[in-house]
């Protein structure tokens, strides 16, 4: 290994000579700067190689020809090497992005940049407590210089505050270090840690001072206003260095002094870190300015990393490997994502207006596709979505905490993570959808719906550094995942598909469609051996559905950029949910699905709010699921059934799934997500993706349903939740003017029936559930595909703006007709089978009132279904829609296929029911059985084939009579009818289909005041208010910040004394 001292020598020599070199021109001197930073990175890489692959052990280096205790020692071990790499990496990215300001400012800027990074590296390497102080000061003082180097007004203000806090911290450190020397007799860390004097009594206090200084430097809540101001105002490159490199160095410094710490110290670190994580994220929730928001996120993340290291020591979470993985993973994730995002915020051009630069104008507009991908990767990583390091770290952390039964810590960490996800993704949505300018001006993003789509922002060279950070995140995430033995290629297939399709995003849509279908087919082929009966059924809906929607996506011409990669990724993610064999693998697949579907929703036109609530609820549900999974040992291990000891965690899993399924109460994300995404994506979400939740619920209930606490009551409650979902879904649907909203609410209602049927928990109930799920897939696909065609042809989603399309789009009409007959459960189509099964199993179970309510709900469904078909296809044609044509083949072909399938399974119910009953029969004693073509329950019977024959026969009879008796009718046109109305102010009010069910609303409207929305809005307001209250701490006054720092230290001291 290279002696790191040479790097210090080289850096200092470069820095010292820089003013002279600068005489040769700024290009030369900047090249020297980059070369110096790169040298650190290269050496760090060589260290890592030697330590991890060449099998060389950690090594210590003496200075001045002596060794400890006389001389200062440097140590190169794995964490040091990684830290050096992180610092130089961030430094290089930031320095690259800062090329222009560095070139324009005096050479002092470049000099302090070198010394800052060298100082941080020294913090990482040294094993001497006082030498650590020297490097802390090199880093701090260089940072003070860097903050001000390009003379931003705000940065100057912030820099002074930064200095005040840094000054107090260094005084604390000095006091600490000298007394550590006094009580231990050493300045060398390892020797001091071995000395007895530091543990107990005054030694503890001495170590406390040392620790307090490091904690203050790590920006704990509430003593971190100074840092956040600096993040906000400094050059984004400097902010990136502060947030990424400096935090890495300081965390490693904390890591280094850990051996000196006693229990009380560790508790202080953990408590302070967690409080910072929670408070930082809450304060960030209110933040509209991008960089300040990133600042809050930074302090929060660093707090979490610090807490993790301390928690491991306190609770024994898993030792060194655990800390490397979790703290290291979180840190890596944080520093790359934050570096990327800070630099991205600079490339977008926000805040530049504050300097009067012309670049401020660039802030208006949406990101270019490439920029959007980069931003998406960075934000997704920050939020902890797969496959990035934060995801793996979060899982391992939660798993370890669950092993120690620290439920409150889990709740705190996940709650704060959710808040963080909320504001980070809000920002992502804003910049991707074109509100970057609004945010740059410090306002919360509001753009009137219907405003012209702003121009695309092309990042140009500014995208390089963020893109590199994003690439590093991807690579490290994949490596970490592999390391945690998530190495099943099928689990990674979604990302591969997305990457390949993104790469050819400019290719024509049909090509990408075909590739997507091929991908789904290949996935199914490869996974076939691992699919049991149940999984095969779901594979039809998930993979088959995905492929079908990929096909349908051809209905709009053009490249449809971004759609196919996301659709394909979501499809394959659904597939990987089916094949996952470990809890982690499953959760990975689940979160991948969440991510892909979120982006799919985001692609919609007016989908900002919808996408945000979709992902927040999606993540919230996923977190519940995750806690449930880690809390049950052996959950999701293949073939685990009826594991004892699974108690309340099962409820968490169920709750998470109910959120995902949009059960009443947690349904507020649903209408927006289903309505605002692209039309075929809506269909995919509603008919395919929602089945993933059903699938997991089936598996979870199959494994744990019998050992649930209070089994009967729990199931009854679950049933009522499903029932309420069904009823309210239908009730909400009938008042919608927006066709897709109608379908969205309808989906919610239909899923409600599935939940209800699952709760019945016997063979009849589960047969019902799976039958309903498959049927819902069939007819909801038909509806969404047909409606996609309609919307494409008429260009609106408001039903009252349509009418009489039966003559223009007869095939779509037929498809919708079949679908609504099936959906409403009218015999002889297969929907009736679902109704019959549902009522039979409910009555058999003895759930009579439930049966009555279900009957009511399904009657209500008639209302919206009739309205749907009537308003669109019947009634008066609109003159403006005279030229409408039938939907494109890409939509009608799948509909035709689905119709054939629908008829087949209606006439021959055993086609569908036999496989279902075979699957269900493995878990339950039979209640239902077939006698010939008749399905027999203890209460009654249903012969689908015979009823189909009778119906067809009767229908044919009547039809013949009608034809035989038809006497030369005269077909009349639209206006051959009496109209007597004047044109009022709002034209839609004259449309008979507007406010179609006014009397109904008068009678039962009180049921449909959206209480769910109000509740969640209140939760949101609450979080917002808490965040608002927290951030009032940050008054902007440097002295108040100083007071915070001192009070923080005092409070920590007193608390530690109390412990």
């Amino acid at each position, binding site marked *: 290994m290279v002696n790191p001292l040479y790097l210090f020598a080289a850096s200092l020599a470069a820095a010292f000579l820089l003013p002279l070199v600068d005489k040769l021109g700024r290009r030369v001197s900047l090249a020297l700067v980059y070369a110096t930073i790169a040298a650190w990175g290269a050496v760090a890489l060589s260290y890592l190689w030697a330590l991890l692959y060449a099998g060389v052990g950690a090594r210590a280096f003496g200075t001045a020809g002596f060794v400890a205790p006389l001389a200062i020692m440097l140590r190169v071990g794995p964490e040091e090497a990684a830290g050096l790499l992180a610092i130089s990496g961030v430094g290089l990215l930031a320095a690259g992005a800062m090329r222009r300001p560095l070139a324009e400012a005096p050479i002092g800027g470049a000099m302090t940049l070198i010394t800052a990074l060298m100082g941080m590296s020294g913090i990482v390497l040294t094993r001497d407590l006082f030498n650590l102080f020297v490097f802390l000061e090199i880093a701090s*003082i260089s940072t003070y210089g860097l903050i001000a180097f390009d003379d931003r007004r705000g940065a*100057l*203000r912030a*820099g002074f505050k930064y200095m005040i806090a840094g000054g107090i911290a260094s005084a604390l450190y*000095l006091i600490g270090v000298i007394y550590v*020397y006094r009580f231990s007799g050493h300045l060398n860390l390892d020797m001091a840690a071995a000395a007895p004097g530091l543990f107990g009594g005054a030694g503890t206090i001495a170590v406390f001072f040392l620790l307090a200084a490091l904690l203050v430097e790590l920006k704990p809540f509430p003593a971190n*206003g100074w840092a956040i101001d600096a993040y906000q105002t400094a050059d984004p490159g400097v902010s990136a260095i502060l947030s990424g490199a400096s935090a890495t160095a300081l965390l490693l410094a904390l890591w280094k002094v850990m051996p000196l710490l006693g229990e009380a110290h560790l508790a202080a670190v953990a408590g302070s870190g967690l409080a910072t994580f929670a408070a930082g994220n809450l304060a960030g929730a209110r933040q509209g300015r991008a960089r300040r928001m990133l600042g809050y996120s930074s302090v929060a993340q660093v707090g979490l990393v610090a807490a993790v290291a301390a928690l491991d020591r306190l609770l024994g979470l898993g030792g060194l490997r655990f800390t490397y993985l979790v703290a290291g993973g979180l840190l890596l994730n944080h520093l790359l994502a934050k570096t990327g995002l800070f630099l991205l915020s600079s490339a977008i051009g926000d805040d530049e207006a504050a300097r009067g630069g012309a670049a401020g104008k660039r802030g208006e507009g949406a990101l270019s596709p490439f920029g959007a991908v980069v931003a998406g990767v960075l934000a997704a990583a920050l939020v902890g979505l797969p496959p990035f390091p934060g995801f793996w770290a979060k899982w391992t952390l939660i798993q370890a905490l669950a092993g120690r039964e620290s439920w409150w810590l889990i709740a705190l960490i996940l709650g704060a993570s959710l808040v963080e996800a909320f504001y980070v993704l809000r920002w992502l949505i804003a910049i991707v959808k074109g509100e970057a300018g609004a945010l740059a001006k410090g306002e919360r993003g509001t753009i009137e719906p219907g405003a012209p789509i702003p121009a695309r922002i092309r990042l140009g060279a500014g995208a390089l550094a963020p893109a590199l950070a994003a690439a590093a995140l991807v690579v490290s995430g994949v490596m970490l995942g592999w390391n945690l033995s998530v190495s099943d290629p099928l689990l990674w297939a979604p990302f591969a598909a997305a990457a390949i399709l993104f790469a050819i995003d400019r290719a024509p849509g049909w090509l990408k469609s075909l590739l997507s279908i091929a991908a789904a087919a290949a996935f199914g082929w490869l996974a076939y051996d691992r699919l049991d009966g149940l999984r095969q059924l779901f594979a039809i809906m998930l993979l088959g559905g995905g492929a079908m929607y990929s096909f349908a996506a051809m209905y709009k011409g053009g490249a449809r950029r971004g759609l196919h990669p996301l659709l394909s990724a979501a499809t394959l993610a659904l597939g990987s949910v089916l094949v996952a064999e470990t809890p982690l693998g499953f959760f990975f697949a689940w979160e991948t699905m969440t991510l892909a579907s979120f982006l799919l929703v985001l692609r919609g036109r007016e989908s900002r709010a919808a996408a945000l609530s979709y992902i927040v609820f999606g993540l919230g549900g996923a977190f519940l699921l995750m806690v449930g999974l880690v809390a049950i040992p052996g959950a999701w291990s293949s073939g685990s059934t009826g594991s004892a000891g699974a108690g309340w965690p099962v409820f968490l899993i169920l709750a998470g799934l109910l959120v995902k399924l949009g059960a009443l109460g947690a349904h507020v994300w649903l209408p927006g997500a289903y309505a605002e995404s692209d039309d075929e994506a809506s269909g995919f979400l509603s008919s395919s993706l929602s089945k993933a939740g059903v699938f997991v619920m089936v598996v979870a209930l199959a494994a744990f349903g019998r050992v649930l606490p209070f089994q009967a009551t729990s199931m009854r409650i679950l049933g009522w939740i499903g029932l309420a979902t069904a009823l309210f879904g239908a009730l909400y649907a009938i008042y919608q003017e927006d066709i897709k909203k109608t379908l969205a609410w309808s989906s919610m209602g239909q899923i409600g029936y599935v939940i209800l049927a699952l709760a019945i928990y016997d063979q009849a109930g589960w047969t019902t559930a799976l039958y309903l799920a498959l049927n819902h897939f069939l007819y909801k696909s038909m509806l969404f595909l047909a409606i996609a065609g309609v919307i494409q042809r008429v260009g609106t989603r408001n039903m009252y703006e349509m009418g009489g399309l039966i003559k223009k789009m007869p095939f779509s009409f037929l498809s919708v007709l079949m679908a609504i007959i099936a959906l409403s459960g009218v015999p002889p189509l297969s929907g009736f089978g679902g109704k019959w099964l549902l009522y039979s199993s409910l009555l058999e179970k003895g759930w009579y009132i439930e049966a009555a309510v279900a009957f009511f709900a399904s009657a209500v469904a008639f209302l919206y279904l009739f309205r749907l078909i009537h308003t669109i296809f019947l009634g008066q044609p609109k003159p403006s829609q005279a030229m409408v044509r039938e939907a494109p083949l890409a939509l009608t072909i799948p509909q035709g296929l689905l119709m054939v399938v629908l008829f087949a399974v209606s006439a021959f119910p055993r086609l569908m029911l036999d496989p279902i009953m075979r699957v269900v029969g493995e878990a339950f004693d039979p209640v239902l059985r077939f006698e010939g073509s008749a399905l027999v329950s203890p209460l009654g019977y249903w012969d689908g084939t015979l009823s189909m024959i009778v119906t067809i026969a009767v229908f044919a009879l009547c039809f013949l009579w009608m034809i035989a008796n038809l006497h030369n009718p005269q077909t009349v046109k639209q206006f051959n009818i009496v109209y007597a109305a004047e044109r009022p102010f709002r034209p839609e009010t004259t449309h008979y289909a507007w406010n179609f069910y006014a009397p109904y609303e008068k009678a039962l409207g009180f049921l449909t005041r959206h209480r769910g929305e109000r509740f969640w809005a209140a939760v949101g307001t609450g979080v917002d208010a808490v965040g608002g209250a927290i*951030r009032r701490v940050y008054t*902007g006054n440097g*002295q108040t910040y100083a007071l915070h720092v001192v009070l923080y230290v005092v409070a920590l001291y007193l608390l530690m004394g109390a412990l």
Partner: protein
Amino acid sequence: MNALEVLAKINPVAASGAVLVLVGLWGVMAKPNLFKIAVAFSVMETGVNLVILSVGYIRGRTAPILDSAADAASASARMTDPVPQALVLTAIVIGLAVTALMLSYAVRLKAGGGGSSIESYGEEKW
């Protein structure tokens, strides 16, 4: 232990250093003038330096320099602890650097027309 014994145990250098630290800290938190804050930091640093020195102090011994008072053979028996003295040298220089930068900031801020009170530089907040 009576009061006299307690007093005898007090390290006078440390005590005065600690008081200076508190005074400096008070100045940092209570005096809004930018330049006074810089001065308060100097006071605090001086206090810290005194505290550092106090640790090396041993009653009745000589400075750690070989001269007539102490030769190489009796060095460890007759000299004070040299380590804090070496450390304080570094600490002083670093303190100097901080003071210099802080004053530069103050000069630069004042030249920007914002006055010398820290209260007028609180634009970044919340």
